[in-house]
């Protein structure tokens, strides 16, 4: 019983980590998106349709969901990445609300074994049963979530050390100066938005299959706001930052039952205080630089 509780919390942490990483990637390129929940939603529906209605295997459904989310991100990116600051934020928020409202009326059902399956407007999309039908246990599914999270995280860590990662940070710091290094900032920003869409999409697809049921109202703006807050709490200096943010919120705050009723208040207060004392989060660029220096020192001492 408690075991299932633990597995559920850990699975939630894992799934939410994807959308946190997604928002983090955009924060690194200097854009605040209030709309990453849209890509989470698009992939939740897309992958659910693929497995529950078209009978695709689950792995293909996950891949499909992530790709659909990436394609949606491309559609959003092309007109919006030229917008600066607040305008980009408002545009992403508007897009996400539009997606949510479309799912409120989106109905696409087919009859499978005498039952109607598929999205049914505001009643949501039931019976996304692929993992239960293939006898994947909750524990095994948690391992799948963390396996994929590990792959994505390793991708982020490689990115961090790469030219592309350096360019993303440059854009976040000074887009005009980046442009003057001979780099087409618009192109790189589109790439970042698409990558972020895919990452959020992986989380959405995983979510739909664990919950077996999705409805439009889950994907409201609070999900996107949390995703942003995670990076801002944990720090923008490393991909571990947003994961720390998720762990603090879901792992710590949600599991301390004494504050259960006040979780949002505690969380909101935490974000407010951190934004004042550490505007780029706990593990910001300077903290990471210090840690890397210590790490190099240790390695040298070993040799």
């Amino acid at each position: 019983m408690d075991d299932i509780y633990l597995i559920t919390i850990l699975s939630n942490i894992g799934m939410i980590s994807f959308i946190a990483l997604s928002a983090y990637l955009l924060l690194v390129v200097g854009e605040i998106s209030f709309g990453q929940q849209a890509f989470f939603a698009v992939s939740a529906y897309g992958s659910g349709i693929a497995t529950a209605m078209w009978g695709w295997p689950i792995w293909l459904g996950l891949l499909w969901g992530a790709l659909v989310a990436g394609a949606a991100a491309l559609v959003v990116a092309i007109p919006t990445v030229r917008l600066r600051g607040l305008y980009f934020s408002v545009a992403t928020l508007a897009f996400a609300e539009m997606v949510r409202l479309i799912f409120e009326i989106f109905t696409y059902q087919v009859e499978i074994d005498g039952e109607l399956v598929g999205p049914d407007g505001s009643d949501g999309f039931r019976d996304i049963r692929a993992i239960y039908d293939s006898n994947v246990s909750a524990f095994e599914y948690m391992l799948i979530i963390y396996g994929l999270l590990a792959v994505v995280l390793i991708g982020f860590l490689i990115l961090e050390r790469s030219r592309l990662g350096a360019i993303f940070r440059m854009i976040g710091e000074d887009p005009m100066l980046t442009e003057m290094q001979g780099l087409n900032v618009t192109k790189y920003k589109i790439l970042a938005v698409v990558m972020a869409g895919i990452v959020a999409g992986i989380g959405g697809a995983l979510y739909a299959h664990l919950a077996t049921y999705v409805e439009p109202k889950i994907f409201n703006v609070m999900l996107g706001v949390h995703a942003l807050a995670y990076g801002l709490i944990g720090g923008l200096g490393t991909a571990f930052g947003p994961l720390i943010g998720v762990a603090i919120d879901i792992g710590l705050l949600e599991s301390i039952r004494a504050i259960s009723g006040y979780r949002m208040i505690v969380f909101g207060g935490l974000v407010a205080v951190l934004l004042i004392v550490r505007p780029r989060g706990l593990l910001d660029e300077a903290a990471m630089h210090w840690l890397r220096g210590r790490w190099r020192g240790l390695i040298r001492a070993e040799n």
Partner: protein
Amino acid sequence: MPILELTTLTKHFGGVHAVDELDLAVEEGEIFGLIGPNGSGKSTTVNLICGVVSVTAGRVAFEGRDITGSAPHRVLAAGVARTFQNIRLFGHLTVWQNLWVAQNSVEDRRSENFAKRWFFGSGATRDAVDQQLEFAGLAGKRNELAANLAFGEQRRLELARALATKPRLLLLDEPAAGMNLEEVHALDGRLRALQQAGMTIVLVEHVMELVMGVTDRIAVLNFGRKIAEGLPAAIQEDPAVQQAYLGGGVETAHA
């Protein structure tokens, strides 16, 4: 054919005529001084060439090609690099990364190899960066964040970063600002070495010891207009120039 040619270049900020029908021709291989009192339009001229601000009227040609209104990344790709009056570096990146990305922008960027192009670059590029660090006297600081460098080091890094993109024309906006005499001498030597190596340089500067010594020719701006052009010695004697600097001699003019 001049390497850089400005024809009736004009920039208005609302009612301010920051640059006003400026004609300028910089020959290949020369160090060209661009001076003038505060607010006379020097930085705006540099920004117009680099595509950072939009051109109101007129034309910018580099190596005979019209680059008026080109995006900054295209101007750089064409072979023009610059430094800033207020140092601009990527403070969140290390010294090494600042140079590495600039170096990449001309080399591995064209590589067909996916990993080279997007991720790690080639060994040759990395070696080139190490050499540049050495040349800039920053080898010991390679893993430092650019934001943590001392002022003089930041200036050297900025110059190194501009050079890393392998420009044929270098635009320097007050590189000596805030430097002590010793540092100005070092900069003087560095500029001459670059000229020896074939670089063309446009030097915007208030520090007259540097400008008068190192430049081949000078143009003087006042209220966005060119009021004089010629050899340094002639500029120093020019009454219109002395008038522009509020009656004082050019030598005494400092920012």
